[in-house]
């Protein structure tokens, strides 16, 4: 009750420190998409799976950036989905590439847990999920605020 009003409802994900997160996501959206575009346009037959995966990663980063940067009703679900998918992607692809490089002859953003990108692809979804949780509604969805004060985490 004595809490500031903005702690009761979901805060926009693109304010304050969230803008840094959006900026990093934007950079990854740009670099992953551009990289996939060049790979698919110039040497697709060399490693189709790896390049399609690069393109998928690019799309996921774009969706995460849009979800985190905007404040529409669909923004937060979109961001949750994209960031969770990103985490799954980097873990699955990272593990596969550590175990066996055969299927991925050329690097993707997520190869070896994002080693080519300073492991940022591994850390980014964790930070993203934490931020979504932190800025999220403190009560359950659809609640009328009757849940009472709940410290923002």
């Amino acid at each position: 009750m004595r809490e500031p009003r903005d702690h009761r409802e979901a805060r926009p994900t693109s304010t304050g420190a969230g803008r840094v997160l959006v900026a990093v996501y934007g950079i990854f959206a740009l670099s992953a998409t551009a990289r996939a575009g060049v790979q698919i346009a110039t040497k697709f037959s060399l490693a189709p799976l790896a390049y399609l995966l690069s393109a998928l990663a690019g799309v996921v980063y774009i969706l995460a950036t849009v979800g985190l940067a905007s404040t529409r009703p669909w923004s937060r679900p979109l961001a949750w989905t994209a960031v969770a998918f990103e985490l799954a992607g980097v873990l699955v692809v990272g593990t596969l590439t550590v175990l066996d490089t055969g299927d991925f002859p050329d690097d993707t953003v997520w190869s070896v847990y994002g080693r080519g990108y300073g492991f940022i692809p591994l850390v980014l979804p964790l930070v993203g999920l934490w931020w979504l949780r932190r800025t999220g509604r403190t009560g359950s969805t659809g609640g009328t605020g009757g849940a009472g004060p709940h410290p923002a985490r």
Partner: protein
Amino acid sequence: MIGTLALATIVACGVLAAFGLSLTAAGRVPGRELRIAAWAVVALLAVQAAIAAVRAFGVTLPEQSTFLIYLVVSVCVLPIAVQFAFADPSRWGGAVIAVGAVATLVAVLRMQGLWAAGA
């Protein structure tokens, strides 16, 4: 590419990133100084990109399209970061510009690598 100019842009990006981060660490909302510093770096990048673009058509690089994409990225990222940082003034604006500066730095380094491989 041109060694000294590339080195200058790399150093300038590094200094800009450090400046932005120091503002965030100090809890200060970025003002005129950071905006001017960022645009000065962009001017340097634009000069480099113009010269590199002209020279890139005279040589055969291993990955010409990749090089040109990095070229465009190196010029475009910082102006977007500046707009984004100043649209919502807070202490985090400096860090946003630092992210743009580091990304630009990486793009310039990659360009250098591709150029060295082709020359």
